[in-house]
């Protein structure tokens, strides 16, 4: 269970990114965080694992108050939180295996990681995860030899190698084609379900979000303006999050891809993802 209480962030430049954001994510729930660019989505998930320092408010993961931690305590908390990034953020010159094993860095000593002598259990688990994301044959390739979708799978395997209690996912599909985007979202859904993992997914593709997440939180200018099931995201809610637009033209299959049955355009005012 993740609890965010009145989280605020004002950058040194004076820009306020978050204004008293409060919500909880229970186990196994996948929350989509939507909102226009600059609404504070990235800041919010980075405030949770303290890659960005929040200005005020609290973040609790299980029994741990994350906002109070420093040094070793913070590193030990970070290893419980897996993070998946927009541009994959793999270390490109390392092999796929090293990238997955880097998810164990918080658990092993510097010398073990320096000499690449990770515990056998970690290595076995890394192979299992690579098999799970369908990249077992690519373990010894360099990360920059993979395609976008494959890299994001490595990113997911790295996050899962941490054996996390929470997944933070920052725009996982922003640089992927529509079909790969869906495959990645489906994979995220599945791994969260398998492990009963809570997840916060930053996503700007509203139809894709509606299709795959359990719940949507909408941010606008750092303020929480929506928090409900994807079905409840109607035109009024979209206007509250993004501003005025002809929302009835937005429908779930706007990105037109493989496994969705063809639907007549504008069949309903707001198409709700199945």
């Amino acid at each position: 269970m993740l609890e965010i209480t009145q989280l605020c962030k004002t950058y040194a430049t004076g820009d306020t990114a978050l204004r008293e954001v409060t919500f909880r994510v229970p186990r196994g729930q996948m929350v989509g965080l939507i909102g226009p660019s600059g609404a504070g989505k990235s800041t919010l998930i980075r405030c949770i694992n303290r890659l960005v320092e929040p200005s005020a408010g609290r973040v609790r993961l299980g029994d741990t108050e994350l906002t109070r931690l420093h040094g070793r305590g913070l590193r030990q908390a970070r290893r419980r939180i897996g993070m998946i990034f927009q541009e994959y953020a793999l270390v490109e010159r390392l092999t796929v295996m090293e990238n997955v094993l880097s998810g164990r860095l918080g658990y092993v000593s510097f010398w073990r990681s320096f000499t690449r002598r990770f515990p056998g259990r970690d290595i076995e688990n890394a192979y299992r995860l690579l098999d799970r994301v369908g990249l077992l044959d690519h373990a010894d390739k360099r990360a920059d030899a993979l395609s976008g979708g494959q890299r994001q799978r490595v990113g997911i395997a790295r996050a899962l190698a941490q054996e996390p209690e929470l997944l933070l996912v920052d725009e996982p599909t922003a640089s992927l084609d529509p079909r790969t985007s869906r495959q990645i979202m489906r994979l995220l859904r599945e791994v969260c379900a398998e492990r009963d993992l809570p997840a916060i997914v930053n996503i700007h593709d509203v139809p894709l979000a509606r299709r795959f997440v359990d719940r949507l939180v909408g941010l606008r200018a750092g303020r929480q303006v929506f928090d409900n099931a994807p079905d409840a995201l109607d035109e009024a809610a979209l206007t509250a999050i993004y501003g005025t637009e002809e929302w009835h033209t937005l429908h779930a299959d706007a990105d037109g891809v493989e496994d969705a049955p063809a639907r007549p355009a504008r069949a309903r005012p707001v198409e709700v993802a199945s």
Partner: protein
Amino acid sequence: MSAPTAYPSRWRRPPTLIRDPRWRWALRVGALGYLVLALGALELDAARIAEGLERGAHFLRGFLQPDFTSRWRDIQQGLIESLTMTLTATVAGILLSVPIGIGAARNLVARPIYLACRAIVALSRALQEIIIAIFLVAMFGFGPFAGFMTLTFASIGFLAKLLADAIEEIDASQSEAIRATGASWWQLIHYAVQPQVMPRLIGLSLYRLDINFRESAVIGIVGAGGIGATLNTAIERYEYDSAGAILLIIIVIVLLVEYSSSHVRKYLQ
């Protein structure tokens, strides 16, 4: 359709750097006037130029008939000294530059460490090799040890600065991802920073090796040993044929190092 508006058909780029035309002209006239005065102060003298060219022709005749044999023993010793100090100074320079370069990268360390390391780099870069060599020869006496110290010190300014700049330009998202796994600072350096800057560090080290060899020939002239000392002696004895041989050897070695280092760098990329 509304009536066509008359748009201008001529356009000139507006001045962006200095807007006031009076300032522009004042600067132009000032620069030209300074150039004329400066040339006047140099006391250009046709007779001296002619004399110098004649002496140059004398050098050239000597260089065209290089004499490798009569001073071969001196040349050989100078070369061995130069190559030894080049290699040892480059290795020592790399070993010292890596920690200083990491410390001089703004994105990795606290501000006091950053400032201290940048100060070391600035000091090393401010002093040209010859000036350092003059000091160190005075401290440690003539010979290759002073040369080794000089080249090591100069390598730090070069390698640590360029390594620090390379570290500051790395892809921040990769280090963010490693930090997010709960990695310690040392693990961050080893997993996120080192893979990104390693090819650059190797390339810079090879480049520095070739600079150090050329510098070893220069600092020999002020007493820091090596092939430069041999060259200096040859010129002082008016043995331009031996000097020509030494210069040819230096050119060939620099070309070899340059050629092989560019090969290695291409392989790394």
